Every structure is written in structure tokens, then in C-alpha cells.
């Protein structure tokens, strides 16, 4: 759960570059795990082997085995697909909706803009996680509600940025110039406003993707997401919570993967933002 903290430029770009490369590499591994999990593990994530239950991590089972003898590493690898899909889907929906709403507000007359801004403010007054919880309260638990909840909860943040960006671009010299030159308003919007807004939004989305994955894991952990035996990360984690005293690895490793994913998304996002500012300024 990362919060956009404005311009972070604590060290030279080069130091950030190493971090960004490491982060990208990790995210790339995740993509591989999502697309072709069999490349990373030979074990079956669903097939139970009770006699192999609760084995500590070893070379054979890098993350150990769970209470029914399934390889935790294989479950995490195969679970990547679900967790990544939820993260990407929720972020894309949130960003698209946010872009739409924000741009409209930025271009609309003051009254409509005011109304939209109020709604965004009210929604932003709710913590994202709580908002997602409330959406699930209304829709009922399940994977579809999970995606809707996470994306809805993130829309206001994107909408706000899109609105401010639209404002800035709209008032900038070149758009005004274009308008004076007789370019239709909708065209200048498409040509200038949307592309200019998209950049910062994509950077935000990189960070937001991490947040979405963490939220999804949290909601699944509470039992409000996909059902077993789908090896989503949050679900594996929650299965391990009663074995903390005897088999810590079931809960610890999936959580570690979630954390590293969030960190990677965050590092990459910050790097992109820093670069964007560097070139734009």
C-alpha cells in the first residue's frame, strides 16, 4: 500500500536505475510465472500428497510443503497468474475510469467540474481498503466483486490527477494557441490533453498495481476473494495462518512475494516518475 509521495529525488538517477532494473527483473519473472508456470517449477500446485505434509523448506521444496503436502513454491508460482491478473485488471479499469472521469471534469464547465470534484473528494475521504471492503459488502464476496471493489476504490486517485493534468494542459500555451488557430476543442483534447495526462497516470498505475495486489491479497486473506483451491497469494497466506507455530513457511513465503512485488512496482514507478520529471522540466 504505497502512497504517492510527490517528488522523491533523494539520490542521483543512476542509483535509482539499479533499483529499477532489479525491480523490472523481478516483475519479469512474475510475468513468466503467470504465463508459463511450468518453466519455474515441476511440482503440481493442486495435487495433494498428505504423506508429504508440513515439510520444512529444502532443495526439493524451496518454500516447504503445506498441510496437504502441496509444494508451497509451486502454489506461489501458479498463484502468480491469479494475483497478477487481478492486479493488472483492477489497475487498468481504475486508470481508464479515472482518466475518463478526470478529463471530463477538467474540460467540463465549472458547475459539473465542481460536482465531480466533490464526489471525488467524498470518495477519497474513504481509505481505499475500506472502500473496497464496502463495495464487497454490497456486491457480496467473490473474485468478480474483488476486482470491481479494488478498481472502484482506486478510481478517485486517478481521476484527481487526470483532472489536474487536464487543467494544466488545457491552460498551457500550445493548447490555447491551437484553439486560437481554429483547431476544434475535441481534437486538441485528443491530441494534447489525453497523451499528456496518460504519462503521469501510467506512472501512478505502476505503483497502483502494487497496491492493488496487496489489497487483493488482504481481501482474499479475509476470505472475500477467490475460493480454494485457487492458489491466489492471499489465500495461500491465510491457509498458513494456523500453522505459524509449526510450519511458518506456508504463510511467510507467499507474503514475502507479495511484499517484493509491491516494492518492485513502487521502485519502478518512482524511477519512471523521476525520469518523467527530469525530461519534462
Amino acid at each position, binding site marked *: 500500500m504505497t502512497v504517492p509521495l510527490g517528488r522523491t529525488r533523494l539520490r542521483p538517477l543512476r542509483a535509482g536505475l539499479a533499483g529499477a532494473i532489479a525491480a523490472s527483473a523481478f516483475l519479469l519473472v512474475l510475468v513468466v510465472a503467470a504465463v508459463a508456470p511450468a518453466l519455474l517449477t515441476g511440482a503440481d500446485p493442486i495435487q495433494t500428497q498428505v*504423506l508429504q*505434509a508440513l515439510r520444512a523448506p529444502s532443495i526439493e521444496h524451496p518454500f516447504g510443503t503445506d*498441510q*496437504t503436502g*502441496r509444494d508451497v513454491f509451486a502454489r506461489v508460482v501458479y498463484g502468480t497468474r491469479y494475483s497478477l491478473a487481478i492486479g493488472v485488471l483492477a489497475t487498468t479499469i481504475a486508470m481508464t475510469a479515472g482518466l475518463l472521469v478526470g478529463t471530463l471534469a477538467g474540460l467540463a464547465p465549472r458547475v459539473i467540474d465542481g460536482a465531480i470534484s466533490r464526489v471525488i473528494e467524498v470518495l477519497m475521504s474513504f481509505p481505499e481498503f475500506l472502500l473496497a471492503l464496502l463495495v464487497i459488502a454490497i456486491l457480496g464476496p467473490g473474485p468478480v466483486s474483488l476486482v470491481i471493489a479494488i478498481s472502484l476504490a482506486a478510481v478517485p486517485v486517478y481521476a484527481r490527477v487526470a483532472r489536474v493534468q487536464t487543467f494544466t494542459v488545457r491552460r498551457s500555451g500550445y493548447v490555447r494557441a491551437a484553439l486560437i488557430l481554429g483547431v476544434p476543442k475535441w481534437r486538441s483534447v485528443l491530441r494534447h490533453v489525453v497523451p499528456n495526462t496518460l504519462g503521469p497516470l501510467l506512472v501512478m498505475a505502476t505503483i497502483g498495481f502494487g497496491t492493488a495486489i496487496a489489497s487483493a491479497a488482504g481481501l482474499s486473506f479475509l*476470505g472475500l476473494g477467490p475460493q*480454494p*483451491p485457487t492458489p491466489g497469494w492471499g489465500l495461500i497466506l491465510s491457509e498458513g495462518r494456523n*500453522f505459524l507455530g*509449526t510450519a511458518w513457511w506456508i504463510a511467510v513465503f507467499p507474503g514475502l512475494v507479495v511484499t517484493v512485488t509491491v516494492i518492485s512496482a513502487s521502485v519502478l514507478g518512482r524511477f519512471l516518475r523521476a525520469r518523467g520529471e527530469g525530461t519534462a522540466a
Partner: protein
Amino acid sequence: MPARAPRSLRTAGAVAGLAIAGLLAGCTAASGDGDQQSLTYAIEGANLSAGHMDPHSSQLDVSALVQRAVLDSLVAQDLDGSFQPWLAESWTISPDELQYEFTLREDVTFHDGEPFNADAVVANFEHVTAPETASAQAASMIGYSADGGSFLGAEAVDEFTVRFDFSKPYAPFLQALSTSQLGFYSPAVLDGKADELKTGGPGISVGTGPFVLSEYTPDQELVYTANPDYDWAPANAEHSGASDLDELVVRILPEPSVRAGALTSGEVQVAGNVTPSTVGSIGDGTTVNSVELPGLPYSLYLNQNNGVFADVKVRQAFQLGFDPQDAVDGIFFGQYPRAWSILGPTTPDSYDSSLEQRPSVDIDRANALLDEAGWTERDAEGYRTKDGERLSARWIAYTPIPDDRASLADVIQSDLKGIGFEIVREALEPAAYNEQYGPKTFDITDWGFSGVDADLLRSHLATDGFQNASGVSDPAIDTLLEDAVATSDPAERAALYTELQQWNAENVAIVPLYVPSMITAFSDSVTGLAFDLYGRPLFYGVQVQGS
């Protein structure tokens, strides 16, 4: 814009200051006044707050478990199975077994001062059988059914004599009377607050018991205080008079590891619903009491009125397609035996041990049965199909699902995939579960049902049984169940129940998986703790040393 940053920090400071003040105010509630005897009992407590505080209406064990402290019964059942006087001093049964007459104690009063008498008894039985109560278990335990059961009604003969009438003999009646499902509420409550009983609470859950419910915080704790006037303990109790415990706190701790940890660290003195995976982690200085539950083992119910289970071959293949032995041994750490029959071995006068000779897992036979049933094609994922439809069954379970049961389901699902049988699992919140359970739109569901009398099979297998999740509708079975409940001769009853168990083994309406035990662990500082036939702790007569 940058100028606004500092605000946040000031907020943080201000909120912290405020909050710490609140913290100091809130943290003073520690225990410690002198010789007050207080005991804390940790239970799982799931769904208690979801309208299950009234044993008259609820079928959940937890309901009967916690309300035993408040609700007394007419008779008590001893561990040897015999019945002892409790609120009834004595009773007679007519030779035709159609009338039971009870002489009540005359010195009993409810917590709210109402007298306990024949009218109170009648009012309680009227509450159990009233349609608004929608009793899921208690009514059926006394053989009541809206459309013609055995139970006709209760009648006050005089102030302290009550008579129950039956249309046909009903063997499990005394046993039923001894449970808290048929305990007694104050008539004042039944009169004015009957529809609040399911929610329960102080002033609502009012009985004659040794403890008075004095505080109730849903999903957190129930606080009972000793009833100082209590002087009507069951005849088989070691203790008499008011309870030595001044306070009994039932703490709801849903996580098994937390219950075990809380006992080990001394936060609670008694931990209930201990699971096999945590029993090993409980520290020294404690005693573990394990009672193998009588009744219906934890089982799967195959709904034969919906989808693929209409075909008995598919049901048989289902049962033969997975190996419960290793799964149960592994998941429950050898603490729970694998179940062979729809009755647990400790159920009196009924268990058919010959079923233990039957083959359990037979993959070849399962495959052959499915071939015979026409599920011969395979789809891309390896599941069997017939006419383009996948061999698939939907298993609904209500939350919270204990981890060990989820693991067991994982194993079954994984094993059945091997014979090309897809199991789709859905975990449903209780409300959503009821929506599907009502119209029976599922293929599989699961539960265990403890009970001392084998008659509990009636609610699971009779055509109109309220727990008949398998959708069994067979006149021969109905007759068998009716005969069994009307028979009081133990050997004859056992013969009838054996027939039923064998019928199920062949027809696979219910797939028994394991026989759970009620495992309770308690600190050595607790003395005088007794357990009933269900392994539920009885706190009357308990003392706590050096608390």
C-alpha cells in the same frame, strides 16, 4: 501546494496525544480482586452471533454449549447413559409408552424471579414447537413435526406436574429432555421477547441455571455470573448449592492456534474446540480431554435430486474415487479416526462395525462405474464428459471453514480429478448458504451432527427431514426410521439402525469421512470440571486455584 505539507505532521501529533489519553483510560480493566473465582473458557464460537443463541431454534452445537450454563433440563443423563432427576423429581412412563408424567421440583425459580412450574414447562414446549421459532433441531428431537410427528403436546396436570403425550412410542424422549436444546426459559421472556431469543443477551437468555448471563458482546465474549440462589443441581452432580465460580467468561477466539496459545500462556483456563493440529502445541500443566462424538460423523451429503448424483453409480464412484484414510490420518494428526458408517462408533445401541470390512478406495471400480454410467468422453482438462457435459459437482460449504476441513476438501478434490470427476467448491457466508440450501440447488454439502441417539438419522434421511441434504425420499427408509424411533428394545433398535447404515453404504446418500472428537484442554489449576456425553465441559462445581 508544497506549503501544505506540514499540516499532516501536526495532525499526527495531535491525534497521538488524544489517542494516548484514550489508551490510558481504556487499559485499566485488569482483573485482580481478591478471592473472586473467575474462569475463562475459550471457544471457537463461529456463527453464534448470527442468530444462534437460542438452542430451542438453533441446530449448532455452540448454541447448546454456551447456553447450558443458563438453561437447566428436566432430567440429566449420566455418563453411563442413565437418567437422573434434575428439575423433575421423578417421572413415570405409561406401559404403552405414549405418556410421560413428570413431578417437578417446587423450589426452583428463574433468574428473573419467575417461578418454575408446570405452566413454565408447557410454555417452553409451545415455544419449541411454534412455527415462528422455526426450530431446526429441538422440535425434531422430541419427535414433533407440524404434519404429524409422534409428539402431541405438553399439558399441566397441576402446578407441579406435567404430562407429555405421544401418538406413538418415542424412544429418545428422555435423552432429548436432558439436553440444553430442551432447557427452560423464563415464561416472562417467552411471553414478551420470544423473537429476541435468537440474538440472546442479558435479560433475554434467562433460565434457571447455575449461571446468569450478565454481559454479552457478540463475537467477543459472554460473561456469566453465579446464580446465588441456585440449589437445584442434577442428582448426579458432585456439587450442590451455588456455583463456586463467581464468574464464568466464555471468550470467543475463532483461531485454533490462538485458543491453544491462550491456554498455554494462562490467559484462559479452559480451551474448547481444540483442533488436532494445535493439540500438540499446548504446554505443560494442562490436561487434554478428548471425547469421540456420538452421532453422525463429519460427512458429505450427495444431493440426488440435482445433477450428476441422481445416478447411484456416480455416487458410488464418488465414494470409491478418493482415499479418506491417509487424508484423515495426515490432516488430523491421527487424532480423529476415519469414519466407516453414518453413525459414530460411540453412538449407543446402533453402530454397525461390520462396515469397517468394506473396501474404501477402489480407483478401478470407480472408473468402471463412471464408464457404466455413460461418462466416457474426456475433455481438454481431463474431466469426463457425457453428451458434451462435464462430470462436475458443486460443493457448497458455509463459512467459516476450518482449515483442516478445507485441507480434506483439497485432498478429495485432487483425488477425484484423477478419475475425471470435477469438484467445484464454493464457500458461502451463512446467509448465502441458506439461499442455496433451501431450494437444494447444490450437489454436495458437508457437516457433522453430534447426538447421543441414533434417531438423528431421521432428520437426515427421512423424506421430510430438516437436514435431509441428500434429498433422500424412500418410503422404505421412512418406515425404517419410524420403526426405529418407536422401538425401545436396544437390540431391536440396533438391528434397525444396522439396516439403515448398510442401506447407506450401498446407496451412498451420505459419505462419512471422519469421527470428530470434542477436544477440551484445561489448566491444572481447574478442578471439578465434568464433561457431558458430548464432551462439553460443565462448569457447575468447578473451582480455580490461585487465579
